[in-house]
Structure formats: structure tokens, C-alpha cells
């Protein structure tokens, strides 16, 4: 995670909107834990609502959206695995428990990173995540 410059200082309203995109994904993560698709939908809606905003707002909405994808894959897999155990084979394996703990750790890391980014972005700082930041730079043009 790095702090970099976007070439201008974002205004307070911009910082608020950009920061909200992370909060949106955060709240949606909590609401969407049983069904991981919910947080993605929530972030997509927020992204669509702000895609015509200023560069700072657009950039952070995009990063917030992209950062959801890896968790979406991890959590969906965990979700369907659990459904399979509950309704099909009924067998909890060591592999499954290890997967769920790994998924929890990744969720936790992303959760903390999201809170930190939301706070920094609210202050007008431009935070670029490792991998997602580069990806966002490729998608989001000034």
C-alpha cells in the first residue's frame, strides 16, 4: 500500500465520496458474509453512481470495486463448500477448516486495509493498494 500523488489536491466533498466507496464495501462485507455476492453488488452500484465523478472519486470507487473480486472468489468457494457439507456429504475435513481459516485471515487483512484506506482517503490522501492500485491505474484514465 503506498501513498502517491494524483497531481492535484482533492476537495473535501471529493475525499468524502471516495472514502465512502470503501465504507460501502465494508458495510456490505458485513451484510454480505453469508452470501458473498452482496458486497460486490453494493460496490458495483456505488461505482456506477460515481463513475462520472472527478478523477479522485472515480479512481477510488474503481479500486474499492476491484478489491472485492479476490474476496468474492474466496468467499464464494467457502460458501458453496459449506453448503455442500450441510446438505450433501456432511463431512467436515481438515482441508475445509484450513480453507475457512485462510479465508477468514484474508478477509481480516482486507477489512483492516479497507478501514485504513477509508480514513486516509477521507483526509484527501491518495492510497494505492498493491496489485489493485496498478490495475486501477490501467482502467481509470484522467
Amino acid at each position, binding site marked *: 500500500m503506498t501513498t502517491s500523488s494524483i497531481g492535484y489536491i482533492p476537495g473535501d466533498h471529493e475525499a468524502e465520496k471516495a472514502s465512502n466507496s470503501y465504507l460501502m464495501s465494508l458495510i456490505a462485507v458485513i451484510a454480505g458474509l453469508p452470501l458473498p455476492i452482496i458486497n460486490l453488488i453494493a460496490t458495483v452500484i456505488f461505482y456506477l453512481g460515481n463513475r462520472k465523478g472527478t478523477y479522485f472519486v472515480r479512481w477510488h470507487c474503481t479500486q474499492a470495486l476491484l478489491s472485492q473480486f479476490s474476496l468474492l472468489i474466496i468467499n464464494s468457494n467457502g460458501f458453496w463448500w459449506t453448503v455442500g457439507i450441510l446438505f450433501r456429504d*456432511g463431512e467436515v475435513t481438515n482441508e475445509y477448516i484450513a480453507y475457512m*481459516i485462510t479465508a477468514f485471515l484474508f478477509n481480516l487483512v482486507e477489512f483492516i486495509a479497507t478501514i485504513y484506506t477509508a480514513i486516509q482517503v477521507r483526509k484527501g490522501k491518495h492510497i494505492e493498494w498493491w496489485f489493485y492500485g496498478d490495475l486501477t491505474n490501467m482502467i481509470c484514465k484522467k
Partner: protein
Amino acid sequence: MLKPILQFGAIAALFFLVWFGLDRIDWMTIFQVEKTTKNIEEKLGDLYWDILKKVNDEITDKDVVAPIDSLLTRICERNDIDREKIKLHLVDKDEVNAFALPDYHMVVYTGLIEDCENEAELCGIIAHELAHLEKGHIMQKLVKEVGLAVLISMTSGNGNPEIIKQAVKVLTSSAYDRKLETEADLTGAEYLINAGIDPEAFAAFMFRMSEQEKGLPDQLYWVSTHPGSEERTQAILDYIEDREVKVEMILDSTQWMTLKENISKN
């Protein structure tokens, strides 16, 4: 473009590495998963048997129980199965039926014993049910058809009576899926061969029952809940084709006849 791909690869690798690392830890012991599963099975087995015991008469007459017990004991001993863990129940009922319940309960109806022409046929059914128990088919079937959440609620005493009734029906009068039945057939045949019992008799029993079933479907539960008997008979015959069985009788013909007479007296 290459950089994000490499970064994505690094994240994926990190994920699998953490997963693999955590998989090295024995979480099953830490979370006592096996103990909890065993507890659920025990409670379910007792619950099932209590329900069945209320509506049926269990035969405890030594003259009837001892010969059946000797058949089961032979199969267990020759296959390294702990006989002690199996709770054999003989139930006085005309239905041609036998089934396995969670936690190693095995229920055999007298109607089935009366329909068997010799001990090998009865051993075939016992070996088949034993295979279901040993392969863990009972819980697999219950979880699939009733659901783990419902099973847990049943064991905690909060089960809805109607659901419990359905759950009992799942094990006493409905089939396992074809894959599990075939596995139980072939494992059962292997048990029989090891125990010195002719597995062909089991195939013959299934074939005879499937023929009879065409006439009277209601009483022949065991066969009507084990569909595709003709194909399965063939599968067993194919499996044992080149196998040599050194038959060692457990009950002689007099003991077998006495057993049947004692059953009709009950």
C-alpha cells in the same frame, strides 16, 4: 500488463501457501470434530432405536438371538470388524426388511429371516447392511436427505415430530443411491468370501425377491427399497466370478430349521 498478472499470481500463491500451511495443523483434533460427529451419531442412533422400539416388539429370546448373533460374529471376526460396536436388534415383524441406523445399530425383521432359505442368504443381507455401516453410508444418506441442521436439532431434542417421522422413514423404507448400494453389495460380497459364506446365495436371494416382488410389492420392503435387483444380482455374480470360496457352515441344517421354528413360535 505483465506486472498485475505477476502480482495476481503472487496473491494466489500466497493464498494457497497459507491454506496449505494451515492444512498441516490437525484442526480436526483441535476442534474435536470427530468426537462431536460421534456424539451426534450416538444420539441419532439412540433416538431412532427408541422410536422403533416404541412401535415394535424386540425379540430377546436367546434361542432366536444367539444363532443370528453367531452369523454376525463370524462375518465381523473374519473381516477385522469390532463385533462389540454393532448393536443387533431382532424385531418381530412380518415385513421382509433389514436396515442399519446411525451408531452401528442393525435392525433385522423376523419376516426377512423367515423368507431366507438358508443361512448364507441371511448372512448376505447382514453383510450388506454391515457394509453400509462400515462405509459410513448411513450419515451420508441422512445428511443428504434430511440435512445436517435438522439432524443436529433432532439430537438436541428440538426436532419437530413430523420431521423426525420422515427422518425415520428415510432409513427404514427408502433406498440409498445406486452408487452406495453397489458399494455395499460388493463390500458385502467381499465380507462373505472372507467369512467362508457363499456370496452366490445373496445374489440368488435378491433375484428371487425381485421376481416375487412383481406379485406382492408391499411386504417385501428390503427388495422394493433396493431397486434394480436384477442388475445388482448380475454385478455381484460378476464380482465373485473368479473368486474361490471355501464354504464353512456356521449353523447346521437342524439349527437353521430350529431357528425358523422358534421365530414362527414368537
